């Protein structure tokens, strides 16, 4: 029996993993909200020179530590500088440090961990022992030495942070890879004669995105705060420039007397973290072929 023409439905075009994922992502209300919020925040910081009401370095010593008011919507810091302006400019530093350093550490960590986990045996032992060794080395001294040999620069800051954060990522990825590589579909891929690289990148990695994304979104704010510690060592932004990490550190010292100095930068960091996490969750749900649907 022949089918009527209108019964023949068009063969649906194949959906790639990514296309499907994007579709799912777009349906996640919180992810949209988080992305938009983050986008606006980043935009504000990028446009800081245009929209900031004051210069970030002009001081007014007699108006130090003023609470939020009409002329300063978020108050002033002890040297009389406008806090709102400093948060905007600080955001530029924090975002660039946070995103770049995290990207570096994720890249290194994922590659290292997946190779260690895939090959196992002696290669795994050596690679993971190297991770242990890097863990044990005192970070403070490491940074101080770095500063001796390299110019004090933002690049060095990214390197220093990235060099530390990739370690835990590598361990997490390794464990995930080791758990997955014995699944049947991997055996199938091997049976098909796919190259190692292709197996790792096209089949294993998409399945471990879950913990990787989660850990990355948590790493970004941690990196922002780590940057404050590095400024303490003399690496990182030099005054009068600032960053959220530094503003929070300074604000913490006076949280009883001038709470706004802590609350506003803290809010900026927290809201960024929450947005990142909504986005991260949605990404994970979107890309993971096995995650539960709502």
């Amino acid at each position, binding site marked *: 029996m022949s089918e009527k023409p209108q019964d023949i439905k068009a063969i649906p075009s194949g959906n790639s993993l990514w296309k499907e994922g994007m579709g799912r992502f777009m349906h996640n209300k919180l992810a949209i909200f988080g992305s938009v919020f983050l986008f606006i925040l980043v935009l504000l910081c990028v446009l800081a020179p245009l929209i900031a009401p004051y210069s970030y370095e002009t001081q007014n010593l007699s108006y130090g530590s003023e609470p939020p008011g009409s002329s300063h919507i978020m108050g002033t810091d002890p040297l009389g500088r406008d806090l709102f302006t400093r948060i905007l400019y600080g955001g530029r530093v924090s975002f660039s440090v946070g995103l770049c350093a995290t990207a570096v550490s994720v890249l290194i960590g994922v590659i290292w961990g997946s190779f260690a986990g895939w090959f196992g045996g002696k290669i795994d032992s050596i690679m993971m022992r190297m991770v*242990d060794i890097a863990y044990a080395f005192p970070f*403070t001294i490491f940074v*101080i030495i770095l500063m001796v040999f390299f110019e004090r620069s933002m690049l060095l800051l990214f390197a220093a942070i990235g060099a530390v954060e990739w370690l835990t990522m590598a361990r997490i990825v390794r464990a995930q890879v080791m758990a997955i590589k014995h699944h049947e579909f991997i055996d199938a891929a091997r049976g098909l004669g796919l190259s190692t690289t292709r197996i790792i990148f096209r089949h294993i990695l998409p399945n471990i995105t879950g913990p990787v994304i989660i850990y990355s979104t948590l790493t970004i704010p941690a990196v922002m705060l780590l940057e404050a510690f590095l400024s303490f060592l003399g690496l990182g932004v030099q005054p009068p420039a600032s960053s959220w990490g530094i503003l929070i550190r300074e604000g913490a010292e006076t949280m009883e007397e001038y709470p706004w100095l802590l609350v506003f930068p803290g809010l900026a960091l927290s809201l960024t973290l929450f947005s990142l996490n909504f986005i991260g969750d949605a990404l994970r749900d979107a890309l993971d072929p096995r995650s539960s649907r709502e």
Partner: protein
Amino acid sequence: MGKFILKRIFLETLPSLLVIITVTFFLIRLAPGGPFSSEKQMSAEVLEQLNSHYGIDKPLYTQYFSYLLNICKGDFGPSFKYPGRTVTELISESFPVSLELGLYALIFAILTGILAGVIAALKPGSFMDYFTMSLSMAGICIPAFVLGPLLVLVFSLKFGWVNVSGWNTFSDRILPSITLGMMYVAYIARLTRGGMLETMVQDFIYTARSKGLSETAVIFKHALRGALLPVISFMGPAAAGMISGSFVVETIFSIPGLGRFFVTAAFNRDYTMILGTVIFYAIIIIIFNTLVDIIQTILNPRLRNY
């Protein structure tokens, strides 16, 4: 299992330790400033005397080999900063304190984190999900140097329930443990939640349910095992970090632990103390990572015989 441990110790741990000691020993000399740089300029003669007393006027290689020889005998040297104390003494007196603090923090973090993660994963997208996750993320947005004083402000100064600082009564342990543990609660909660979400849709869960097992049994006996894999790998170094002490928490609460030495030894260029703490920390990390690997193998039999 025994062979595994022995193999770990001799083929991996000892060589790693040797590498760590060597790298640290030579690299720390590259940092500008020495243990004796001080604001009031010391005379050249006095500096010479001090360098000779501590043996740092000898060539670096000689110092390195004598150091290795000494640590085989268990002598980690005197502290440069505290002339009358040995490194062994300083570490052995302060480590038990950090260990206790770290254990409480660990228990707090694990219980709270896993609980939060499981609750959140049971009803993804619900209010409970967002609520527990937000609460646990407080640990990351609110770093220790903010959380600690904040807790002190509320529970010590306002309510007067506990002391502001110190390590004397049992109640002194509460606030520092929470402050230290909070940082990890977020990671544990989120990793648990993510792991649970992935595990709960796998086939063996449906099997377990259809066998008639109660939901609690399904969650805790079957799902959690697989879900905890990323948590465990994270916990290895995290636990090591917690029990070796936290500089920030110990300074805020005036706790005589080991954590502060990690940072102050570096700032003081106390070479022997730096090496001592590095070795100690390395051993702890290696122990914990080995433990983690063992636990992972138990939880997921497919990881054996890699």
